[in-house]
């Protein structure tokens, strides 16, 4: 199946355009913009890990290594398009408009942590594996029904493809000609379980055949391949030609999450090195830009400073913000609070003294 679904690569690991390939037409401005965002994620990831270790953040699933997937895909969309992310897709979510401070509130578990600003077309990160694929199918179906030329894009991992809900989501989307892009970040592992034990299929892309859907396999660490492929899939979707399953091959450089995962228990050191040194998505794009005269050490240092300041402002803002009270949360169970819940709300208010 690897020959039916060859891995599309435009930018090779040395930062050179692969022979015969044409990079997407992007202005210098746009190229720098993409790099800037990938680099921002790199800084965000490193600092978030640090903040987590300091106990200043809560649940965090490192995204380092997957920057090309998240920025390439999000950048190929319009702001009017919708993204349905998983817990690991804070990068794409921030690119699409979720402020850093929002992601930190979510991570820490503060009130409003999942309240994404009204003008950002983003669902909250999904924890229950693969449920978001169904939501993206529903959204893409709605766009077709209402003749809206939006696209719904959802991110999910290689492990997610084993869930029944992945199957239902893709099947619905194909039948309904939903304007949906299923973006699979195949980072080779579902926590500790390698792809070979997850499925007996050689590729994820070939699973599209089960749905009579277009499937494509790309180098997920190649920003050009990601950007170009998502752009094409979005065009197809907008034209009413149906959904696409994109398998983007990538690697998470860090642990699964910061809640005690130790990758040395399940993956070889050499493999990590290979991806870190040889296939890094940020590095290869930097080499490309450098060759084009679009990158400099000073620019990057500036970017780093800027991002660090933003993060530090964000975490400080978030730590000063209220954590939230149970009685406030009760307002969000229903649009109007039923009588019995109102009664409980009063009871909850009375706890404030009793609790310890």
């Amino acid at each position: 199946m690897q020959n039916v679904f060859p891995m599309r690569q435009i930018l090779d690991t040395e930062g050179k355009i692969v022979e015969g390939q044409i990079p997407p037409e992007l202005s210098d401005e746009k190229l720098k913009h993409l790099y800037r965002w990938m680099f921002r994620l790199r800084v965000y990831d490193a600092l978030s890990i640090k903040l987590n270790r300091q106990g200043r953040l809560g649940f965090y699933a490192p995204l380092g290594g997957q920057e090309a997937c998240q920025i390439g895909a999000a950048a190929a969309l319009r702001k009017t398009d919708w993204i349905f992310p998983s817990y690991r897709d804070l990068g794409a979510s921030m690119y699409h408009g979720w402020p850093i401070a929002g992601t930190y509130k979510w991570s820490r578990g503060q009130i409003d942590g999942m309240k994404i600003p009204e003008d950002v077309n983003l669902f909250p990160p999904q924890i229950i594996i693969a449920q978001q694929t169904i939501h993206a199918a529903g959204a893409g179906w709605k766009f077709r029904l209402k003749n809206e030329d939006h696209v719904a894009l959802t991110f999910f991992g290689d492990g997610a493809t084993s869930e029944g809900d992945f199957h239902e989501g893709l099947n619905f989307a194909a039948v309904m000609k939903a304007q949906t892009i299923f973006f699979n970040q195949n980072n080779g592992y579902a926590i500790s379980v390698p792809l070979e034990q997850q499925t007996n299929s050689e590729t994820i892309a070939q699973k599209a055949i089960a749905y009579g859907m277009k499937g494509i396999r790309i180098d997920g660490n190649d920003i050009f391949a990601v950007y170009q492929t998502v752009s094409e899939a979005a065009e197809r979707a907008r034209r009413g030609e149906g959904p696409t399953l994109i398998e983007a091959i990538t690697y998470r450089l860090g642990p699964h999450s910061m809640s005690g995962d130790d990758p040395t228990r399940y993956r070889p050191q050499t493999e990590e090195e290979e991806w870190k040194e040889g296939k890094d998505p940020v590095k290869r794009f930097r080499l490309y830009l450098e060759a084009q005269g679009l990158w400099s050490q000073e620019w990057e240092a500036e970017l780093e400073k800027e991002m660090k300041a933003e993060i530090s402002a964000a975490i400080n803002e978030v730590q000063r913000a209220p954590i939230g009270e149970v009685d406030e949360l009760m307002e969000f169970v229903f649009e109007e609070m039923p009588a019995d819940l109102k009664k409980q709300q009063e009871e909850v208010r009375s706890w404030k003294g009793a609790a310890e």
Partner: protein
Amino acid sequence: MAMMTMIQAINDAMRVEMERDENIIVLGEDVGVNGGVFRATDGLQKQFGKDRVFDTPLAESGIVGTAVAMAALGMRPIAEVQFGGFVYECMDQICTQAARLRFRTGGRFQVPMVIRTPYGGGAKTPEMHADSFEAYFMHTPGIKVVFPSTPYDAKGLLIAAIRDNDPVLFYENMPLYRSVRQEVPEEAYVVPIGKANVVKEGADVTVIAYGNMVRLSEQAIAQVEKERGVTVELIDLRTISPLDMDTIFDSVDKTGRVVVVHEAIRTGGVGAEIIARINEERILKLEAPCVRVTAPDTPYPPALVEDKWLPSKGRIVAGIKKVLDF
């Protein structure tokens, strides 16, 4: 006004609402060309077209989940789960996604959708068709659970459910679909969700029921009233979640004696919660322990045994007498 069965009233509710609001769509297995296995959606695809009434693939999580997203983006989907026992197939989409989206997003999104599902014993259906699983959803904050017991209520409650900005699980009792006809207004009207109905006033005992158990309780009450010269108050809950405790408490204050009837199994059922709340707030008013008339704690039995397993008129009579004779 027209004489309607419950299934006609349900069909009519969807029709009048779909005429009003083009964001209302219907989706589910066999709801389109076939008009539903009970004909609840009969004629809707013809009238509103294939872009508003959908025969979906056979996948309940897909049905509910796509509806959740569409609802969050401004549609008002009416999803059908073909039989009540199949809710297990879409438990996460109901309980984690539909019921929680408003809460999870601090109110940014809402999920104005209805999940219709037939349930209820007596129709001799195969396994997993007749089960009463409402207690699961009473224990799930964020979703409303509605049980019409008459054609009139069915239309009014379904319209209320469609207009509600929160997800509503709408339970349709199979034996009631065609067994009763009633005058039902032709225009739209609302029977409010969250408000119980005092079907019949009485002074000595309060019987609390919902769905088909209301009809059965009426018969049992008639018998006991005749035999004992007492009067029995009958409350049709109409809504299981949220529970209208005010109506229940008012009645308990009068009668001091309570019988709860449901066809779900006993342990962990709706009756347990009602009794716990009465205990919490009205214990001093009680003249006798509250009695539960329910199915026993087993899986739903084979079809020919169901009538012996479900609450019967005789068992409700016995329950009322028990609470009277304490």
